[in-house]
C-alpha cells in the first residue's frame, strides 16, 4: 500500500512536470492553470493539443510496457523477458517501415500507426500459429525469436533497397521512438489497445502467482495453462502494438521496471503487475521530460533516452546479482 502511494505520487508529480515543459516558455503554474480553466488563446491551445496528449501518451505507454514486461517475466519465470520477446514490436515496426517507405504518411495522417497495428496483428497471429495452441513457454520464446528475426531482416531489407534517402532517414529516426508532436488522435488510437491489453493482463494475476510453483503444480491448482498463455500473449501484443504504432520502438521499460520493483512487492508476480504499470509510467514520463530538458533544440529520441537510463540501471542490477552469488 505504501509502495502504491509512493509510485502514484511520483507519476502524478512527473505528469504535472511534463505538462509544464515545452518550447513555449511559460511558468509552470500558469500553464497548468491554462489547461484547467480551458479558456481560448494560444497557451490553453498548446496545453490541450500538444502537451496534454504527450504527457498522457507517456503515462499510458510507459504503464502498458511496464505491465507487459511484468506479465511476460511472470509467465516465462525469467527476469530477462521483455515485451519485445514475442516478436510483436518487431512486426509492428516493420508495418510502420513499409508505410514510411510507401509514402503513406504523406497521404494519410494515420497511415503509419494503422500500418504498424496491422503489422502487430499479423505478428501475433504468426507467433500464436507457430507456438501452437498447447505447448509450453519454450515454443513461445522460439516462435517470438523467429518472428523478431524475420521482421528485423525485412526491415533491414527495406532500408537496404530504399531508393529514397529521406525515407530511409525517416525510418531510422522513427524506429528510435518518440512522443514529439503527437495529437489527441494518436491517444485515441492507442488507448483502446493498451486498456484492453492491460485488462487481459490483469486477469492473469492469479495464474502468474500459481506459476511460481512451475507449470505442473500450477495446473493442479486449477489453472488452465493454455488460457493463461493466450491471455498473456494477446494482452502483451495489444499493448506493444498500440504503443509501437504511435510512439515507435521504446525498449528497456518493460525489462528494467519489473526488475527494479520486484524486491518491493515480495517478488509476487500478481502485485508486480500493477506496481510495474505505475513504475513504467513514471520511467517513461521521466525519460520524455529528459528528452525536452537536456537537448531542447535537438530532436533527442525517446527510445535513445530509455536505453541510456535503462542500461546503467541494468549494470547496477548485474553487480547486485553478482554480489549475492556465493
Amino acid at each position, binding site marked *: 500500500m505504501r509502495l502504491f502511494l509512493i509510485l502514484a505520487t511520483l507519476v502524478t508529480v512527473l505528469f504535472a512536470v511534463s505538462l509544464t515543459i515545452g518550447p513555449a516558455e511559460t511558468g509552470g503554474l500558469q500553464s497548468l492553470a491554462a489547461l484547467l480553466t480551458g479558456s481560448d488563446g494560444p497557451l490553453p491551445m498548446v496545453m490541450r493539443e500538444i502537451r496534454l496528449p504527450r504527457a498522457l501518451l507517456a503515462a499510458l505507454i510507459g504503464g502498458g510496457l511496464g505491465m507487459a514486461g511484468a506479465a511476460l517475466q511472470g509467465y516465462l519465470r525469467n527476469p530477462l523477458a521483455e515485451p519485445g520477446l514475442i516478436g510483436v514490436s518487431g512486426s509492428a515496426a516493420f508495418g510502420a517501415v513499409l508505410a514510411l517507405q510507401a509514402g503513406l504518411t504523406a497521404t494519410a495522417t494515420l497511415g503509419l500507426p494503422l500500418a504498424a497495428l496491422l503489422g502487430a496483428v499479423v505478428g501475433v497471429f504468426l507467433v500464436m500459429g507457430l507456438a501452437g495452441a498447447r505447448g509450453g513457454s519454450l515454443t513461445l520464446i522460439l516462435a517470438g525469436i523467429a518472428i523478431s528475426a524475420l521482421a528485423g531482416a525485412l526491415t533491414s531489407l527495406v532500408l537496404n533497397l530504399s531508393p529514397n534517402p529521406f525515407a530511409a532517414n525517416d525510418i531510422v529516426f522513427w524506429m528510435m521512438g518518440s512522443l514529439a508532436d503527437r495529437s489527441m488522435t494518436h491517444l485515441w488510437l492507442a488507448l483502446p489497445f493498451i486498456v484492453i491489453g492491460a485488462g487481459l493482463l490483469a486477469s492473469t494475476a492469479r495464474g502468474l502467482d500459481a506459476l511460481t510453483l*512451475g507449470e505442473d503444480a500450477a495446473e493442479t*491448482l486449477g489453472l488452465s495453462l493454455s488460457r493463461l498463455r493466450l491471455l498473456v500473449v494477446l494482452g502483451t501484443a495489444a499493448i506493444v502494438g498500440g504503443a509501437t504504432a504511435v510512439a515507435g520502438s521504446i525498449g528497456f521499460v518493460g525489462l528494467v521496471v519489473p526488475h527494479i520493483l520486484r524486491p518491493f512487492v515480495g517478488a509476487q508476480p500478481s502485485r508486480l503487475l500493477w506496481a510495474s504499470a505505475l513504475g513504467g509510467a513514471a520511467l517513461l514520463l521521466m525519460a520524455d521530460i529528459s528528452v525536452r530538458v537536456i537537448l531542447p533544440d535537438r530532436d533527442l529520441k525517446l527510445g535513445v533516452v530509455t536505453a541510456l537510463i535503462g542500461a546503467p540501471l541494468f549494470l547496477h542490477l548485474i553487480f547486485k546479482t553478482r554480489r549475492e552469488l556465493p
Partner: protein
Amino acid sequence: MTLLSLTDLAVTLRNRPVFSGVSLTIGEGELVGLIGPNGAGKTTLMRSALGLLPIQSGQSSLAAMSTADRARAVAWMPQAREIAWPVPVERLVALGRLPYLPISGKIPPADQEKIDAAIAYLGLEEFRARAASRLSGGEQARALIARAIAQDTPLLMTDEPIAGLDPAHQIATMQVFADLARHGRSTLVSLHDLGLAARHCTRLVLLAEGGILADGAPEDVLTDALLARAFGVTAWHQQTSSGPVFQPLEVI
C-alpha cells in the same frame, strides 16, 4: 471413500508404451508408496493419473474431473522443487489456497488459519518472512509440503519428495505423510528408499515391467523374489523391536 481410482490405465509416450493395464484404488487414511526401478514410469503414472498427460486407454477418476474440482480433490508436488521467485515462505504456502480464494484475491480469515496451521505443522514459523527460493534444499522441501497441505485436499500425490534430503528431513517428511494418513488424508508417494518405504508406508505399489507387479502391505511386496525380479537386488528384511528394517545388499 475412494480418493483415486485408476482402471486399466495405459500410457504411450513418443510411440513407446510406458505401462498398460494399471488398476489402482486409494481410499482414506493410506500412505501408499510407489516404488519401481528408474524408468519404470512412476512419474508418468502419477502425471497421467492427474490428467497432466494424455491417456491412451483406461480411466482415471482425477483426470475425469474439471480442473477446478481436481484442485480440491488432490494436491500435486512435482519432483522438481520449483520456486521461481524469491517470495516469502508465507506467500508460497498461501498459494495452496488459490483454488478457494474469491475473485478479489484477498485471503479470508478461515483460509489464513489453514495457511498458519500448515506453516506451524511443518515448523516453518521462523522462515515465514524469508525468501523461499533462498532456503536450503530441506527447508524448501518443507515449505513446498506446507503449500500442498494448505491446499487441504483429501489426497496428496508427491514425486520423490525425499530425494536429496538429509536423513532427519527424510524421516520427518515420511512422518508428516504418515500423520496425515492417521487423520484420514491419504498420500501417494513415489520413492527409491525402500528402507523408508518399508518403515512408513501402509501399502506399497511396485511398478515394473510395464505394469503393476505387486500391490499390498510392505512385507508382501518387498519379498526376495519380487526384489530380484524388479530391481535385481538382494536384501535383508526383518521385523525388529524398533519396527521393520530393510536394507538392500547386493546386485544380483
